[in-house]
């Protein structure tokens, strides 16, 4: 059995039977797990049906288009017609679409044109097959009938981009009076995108369950394509046994979290070269030792022994979940990950005790070196965070500098204890605040934490005057705007409104704010209304 069919046997049987015999005009395939594979499977299936000599009845032509790529109706018409007619536009002729010889009718203007286009395509294809059939002297009255199949992927997007086309597309057979079938493939249910008032006929439903673990493993193993290269690479034919074992273990690790076979394949592709590296090293060393043998049979890479296999899985099992953690959210890409996690050379020859334990993941250091921002921007970010998490009423208590410094904090503690337990604002997400409030908090922060680092300015004598000057400088405003453009602050008022102060929202997380505050030696927790 071919690998592309794995897990899709039922679908394939059902669909090929339908298509070959009496296809319903409108089929809806619902697949939550991995529509991408389903799409390619259907394409391959239809391709097979087309390419195998027409068994039962009719010649089938199909077009598969993606609803995301077809942003406009015109694009949808163009691509369907071009694909059906197997027409590729030529740049030197000015990229014309497919059309009948000597006919300059436009098929992409509206749906009506599209229907005419479909009819034209169908008769064109029929003519073509007739010509072919004549040559082979196999002309039958039934065989020259043409059946069209249109597959639309990501059909859920049609509802957003081309809602007005949904009804006519589902009724395409009625409208064109052709032997035609429309297949919509989507990851949402038909109920979610069904046009109102029952305008569309109900489709023939095919629901696909997510693939089971065993199927995924099988697909993985089948995707192991041995390289033709005789030299020992990671995809050498004799490593297939090891790979199937590897695939099983990998699926055991990943399946609880990820059901998408593509993702698991992705992780496998990143981990496999490293996994097999020690075996290859061993082999190379062996070759170097036995240089004088000159026996091509001997130089062949042997499938590794059971002991080696166990040692390998012992060595690498921990890194599988690490790979999942990093690669599934795409914190890094497979190529880089594979390069970074290359095992030490000659791992198999080393004693188990000598093998260093897994390296520390560099998660923390990146956080610390995170924000290479100017000092004022960092202050502004901390101020936005405070403004977004603290309630506005609390500002005067939090930042007001009374005669007695201690009084402030004690009071805060009391209030946090007394009220009914509420979810802290930090967890509810940031609230919007006006620019003025941001500047006021910024001023308070600067006054407390930034006075020492300033340049001397003897002309300011009143306490706080210098800070006041600093917060109203142009550079502060431009820094706010720049941070907004970096999306570290979100602007909540439209940019073209002049009345009133603009309002903003904080765009950084608590951790980032904490790190920033630490750098600036601001006691962030003391300044938060309900601290963590």
């Amino acid at each position, binding site marked *: 059995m071919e690998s592309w069919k794995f897990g899709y046997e039922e679908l394939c049987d059902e669909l090929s039977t339908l298509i070959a015999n009496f296809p319903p005009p409108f089929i809806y395939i619902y697949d939550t797990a991995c529509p991408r594979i389903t799409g390619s499977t259907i394409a391959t299936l239809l391709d097979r049906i087309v390419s195998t000599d027409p068994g039962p009845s009719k010649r089938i032509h199909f077009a598969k288009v993606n609803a995301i*790529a077809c942003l406009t109706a015109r694009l949808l018409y163009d691509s369907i017609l071009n694909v059906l007619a197997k027409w590729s536009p030529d740049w030197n002729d000015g990229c014309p679409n497919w059309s009948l010889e000597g006919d300059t009718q436009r098929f992409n203007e509206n749906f009506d044109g599209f229907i005419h286009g479909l009819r034209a395509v169908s008769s064109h294809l029929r003519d073509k097959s007739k010509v072919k059939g004549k040559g082979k002297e196999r002309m039958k009255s039934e065989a020259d009938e043409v059946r069209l199949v249109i597959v639309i992927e990501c059909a859920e997007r049609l509802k957003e981009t081309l809602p007005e086309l949904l009804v006519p597309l589902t009724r395409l057979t009625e409208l064109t009076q052709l032997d035609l079938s429309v297949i919509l493939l989507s990851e949402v249910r038909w109920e979610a995108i069904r046009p109102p008032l029952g305008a569309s006929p109900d489709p023939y439903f095919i629901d696909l369950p997510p693939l089971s673990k065993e199927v995924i493993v099988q697909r993985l193993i089948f995707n192991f394509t041995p390289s033709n290269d005789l030299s020992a690479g990671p995809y050498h034919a004799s490593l297939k046994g090891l790979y199937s074992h590897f695939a099983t273990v990998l699926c055991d690790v990943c399946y609880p979290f990820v059901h998408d076979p593509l993702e698991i394949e992705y992780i496998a592709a990143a981990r496999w070269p490293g996994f097999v590296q020690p075996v290859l090293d061993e082999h190379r060393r062996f070759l170097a030792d036995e240089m004088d043998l000159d026996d091509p049979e001997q130089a062949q890479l042997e499938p590794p022994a059971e002991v080696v296999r166990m040692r390998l899985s012992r060595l690498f099992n921990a890194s599988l979940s690490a790979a999942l953690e990093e690669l599934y959210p795409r914190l890094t890409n497979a190529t880089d990950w594979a390069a970074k996690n290359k095992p030490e050379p000659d791992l198999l020859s080393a004693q188990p005790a000598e093998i260093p334990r897994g390296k520390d993941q560099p998660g923390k250091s*990146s956080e610390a070196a995170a924000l290479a921002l100017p000092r004022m921007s960092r202050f502004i970010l901390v101020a936005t965070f405070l403004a977004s998490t603290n309630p506005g009423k609390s500002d005067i208590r939090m930042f007001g500098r009374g005669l007695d410094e201690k009084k402030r904090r004690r009071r805060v503690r009391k209030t946090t204890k007394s009220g009914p337990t509420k979810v802290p604002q930090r967890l509810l997400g940031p609230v919007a605040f006006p620019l003025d409030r941001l500047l006021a908090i910024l001023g308070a922060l600067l006054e407390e934490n930034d006075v020492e680092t300033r340049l001397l300015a003897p002309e300011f004598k009143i306490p706080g005057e210098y800070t006041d000057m600093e917060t109203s*400088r142009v550079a502060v405003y431009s820094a706010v705007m720049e941070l907004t453009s970096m999306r570290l602050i979100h602007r909540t008022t439209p940019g073209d409104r002049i009345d009133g102060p603009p309002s903003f929202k904080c765009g950084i997380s608590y951790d980032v704010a904490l790190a920033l505050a630490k750098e600036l030696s601001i006691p962030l927790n003391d300044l938060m209304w309900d601290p963590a």
Partner: protein
Amino acid sequence: EKLRIDVYTAAWEKCLDRIKSIVRALHAPIASEIKHEIHTSYDQPLPGLPYPEIPVIGITDPTSSSTFLDQIAAHTDSFDLEKRDASNTVAFTSHLYPNDCNNVMSAMKALINGFVDRPHLLEKGKGRSGISLAKYDIETLLAWYTAIRDTYDLTEQCKPKLVVLFHDFEQLDPLVIQDIFSISSLYISRLPLVFILALSSPASPSYLHSTYPRSTLALLRFSNYTVPSGTKVLEEVLLRTFFDTNFEPDVIIGPGVLTFIADYYNRHNSSVDAVLNILQLAHLRHFSGEVLTLVVKSTPSSETLSEDTSLPFVEEMLSRLQSFNPSSGRDRSISSIPSLIAATDDARNSMYSRARQMRVGFGIVKLIQDFMTSQGYKGLDWDNSAKGVDIIDVMIGALQGDLRSDVKYLGTMIKKLEISQLGTLFGNLHTFYNALPLYIRSSEEEARMNVILAINAIPPSGDDGVPGVSPLVAANFAGWLVKYINNLLTPLEDEPLWDIWYTGASSFPSPLINPSVRATVVAGLLHPYDFAEPSRKKDEEQTDPALWELPDTSILFHRYLDSGKMLNIYDWFTAFQQELETQRKNLEERALAVRSGQSSPRKRGGKGKIKEKEKPESEEEVDRWQLEIQARFVRALQDLDYLGFLKHTGRKADHVQRVVFDMHD
């Protein structure tokens, strides 16, 4: 004036070119890395990947300076702009700006047009727009790409990459970009697209990862590059511009400006562009403030100086020269113009050589310091960010000539060095001297000899028999070195006419580049004439103009400051009216005075006329005057409102709220 502008331009361009080349050198490694990444992006995909990914290169450039992107674009685009032949082309570039990306359609159109619109490479065949492919259809790009490859016979190996440069990536609508990514991903096996994202937000938390869903990220192969930034860049730029022995700036920037640059860079805007702005302003100010800066580059010929128009200049020059050497100035008669020129040339030469010495001294100190740290000693407390003494402070110290204690400390350090270390240090010093440009080297010949002597004095390695030698050599050398460096590092202010070439301690006027908005607006309203005519400022500084002499808006603003929290519009108006009355009276008097002084025959008539006018003061005229006052009041009020000084609360009829209180004037 014109001459000074020319001199300024020359000096500034010299400085600018230098900085540009430094920055380019700083960026070069990253740029070439990215270039390499673009070229190899399709060469070695990891085998076994489920589907081909789009190579995406993120360039994190926190300062969002355009220079780097230009550099990249120049790298990638230079191939296809000049040559009409595409057979050797490595990449085509298309630029995508936030303005193009309001929706998917326009974004795709812009993206495709950026590639396709190259008529010099490939002419598009004629076709009717209706029946041909849409301009935003990626099939168009595919057709073009196939045509390009057919026309120029490109083999499978050298597929030119299609580079899309997303400018200001954060500004682009994520939904649009998602669609672009997924459309491109469908065609990736046929179109070798490479996306470059110009990010200005910091590398982590990554903007891309926090904004885009996993399904989109899964289509990409993202790799990130960070453009160097931060204080290191600033240090490099300043070091290699003003403290490099191989480069001589025309104007030496003093500690005042350096301090400001360092502070501004750290506090507000860490981009090279900002540093350039400040330096340019410093240059401009230097040249505009000082008449004598004319002679920065060269002294004008004696013919020019002997003209009448240049007399004040010559006098100024003379007095300045004499003030520097009051005793000897009298004897050496520099009253004649040729001798004046000679004296100026002397001053320039000695100034520049002094600056050169200063740079050499600084270079040596830095070299020894680097050596000490590389040997694992603590050395001086440079680069110790916690204490805040960084290399910029050291630069400032060198300029002010107060590095003596540091130098002394270095001397003691040298005394304690091992013999092998001494050898290395001397070797380093020797290479330093040899690397000096010729004209400096000749003046430092003596020092070089001294170093060579010291090298020779070290016993050959392995000969540990004589324990007493190394301390002796070290002590001698250290003693000499301290004296020598101290000689080199004397303040530049001692030279005659130093302020022509050196900006000295004068601080940089921060309001020029970073004004405080409110303070400036308020100051403008309070003292409008300071802003309007700065040339007259000197004469009139003592006498503040009376209130009635100010423009209407200022008058109104003065009254505004006198009020309480709420302003009654009518009261305000009355006050304004009073002031306008005085203004009118005074203006009339002044006009009268002017007229009387101007011409006696008219005097009588004029007086009569005015008296005539005043006497009747007809109803009509009073009305018109009232109307004028009202109109002016409303206009001034509107101005203040527009500037945001008023708040319209509906709390009290005919009242507005005042919003600016704390006036310290």
